[in-house]
């Protein structure tokens, strides 16, 4: 069974530019999470989807961040415009029926 797939693995962009990350969860998993992990810290939840509905986006900086999960499967996370402080690893995870989350390898974003 394929795990959670994220792309790209690495991204370097200049500040004020847009960037997008893509996630394909494990087949059949109804819950999808986007986390941000700063260097030396634990992951922090940005947004959680139950199927195609965003049920928790309280930590998503809505002025520059957006996310969507069309048809309740794949998801994209976008930042526009990116700031220096957005440099981090962006992790996608999925779970079935709300049990343990399975993580992708993450996208390491560097904003210069």
């Amino acid at each position, binding site marked *: 069974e394929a795990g*959670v797939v*994220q792309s790209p693995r690495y991204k370097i962009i200049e500040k004020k530019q847009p960037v997008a990350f893509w996630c394909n969860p494990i087949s059949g998993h109804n*819950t999808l*999470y986007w986390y941000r992990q700063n260097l*030396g*810290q*634990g*992951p*922090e*939840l940005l947004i*959680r989807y139950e199927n195609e509905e965003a*049920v*928790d986006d309280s930590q998503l900086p809505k002025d520059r961040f957006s996310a969507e999960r069309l048809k309740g499967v794949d998801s994209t996370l976008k930042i526009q415009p990116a700031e220096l402080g957005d440099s981090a690893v962006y*992790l996608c*995870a999925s779970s079935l029926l*709300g*049990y*343990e*989350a*399975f*993580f*992708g*390898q*993450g996208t*390491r974003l560097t904003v210069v």
Partner: protein
Amino acid sequence: AQSVTQLDSQVPVFEEAPVELRCNYSSSVSVYLFWYVQYPNQGLQLLLKYLSGSTLVKGINGFEAEFNKSQTSFHLRKPSVHISDTAEYFCAGKTSYDKVIFGPGTSLSVIP
């Protein structure tokens, strides 16, 4: 407040010695508890989980953890570590609102 605390940011230990990584949680995150491991440039991998039942939980790679409700702790242990156990370890808890909160992580360094 909802929180997961890992008091030790770094734990050095000699190869084949036992190790304990400490985790404490606030009462609001005690619905489910998890330990994840993260190797360099990788996503998080589930080591073990506590949902209910026996308070001693066994996971992969020889790790185990004990849920202690009175001390609000969920410490991770391994009787004999290997070089390959060098990684970052994260304790996490799930709240009644289905939110997974991660601790700041403990960096385990196994010394040959």
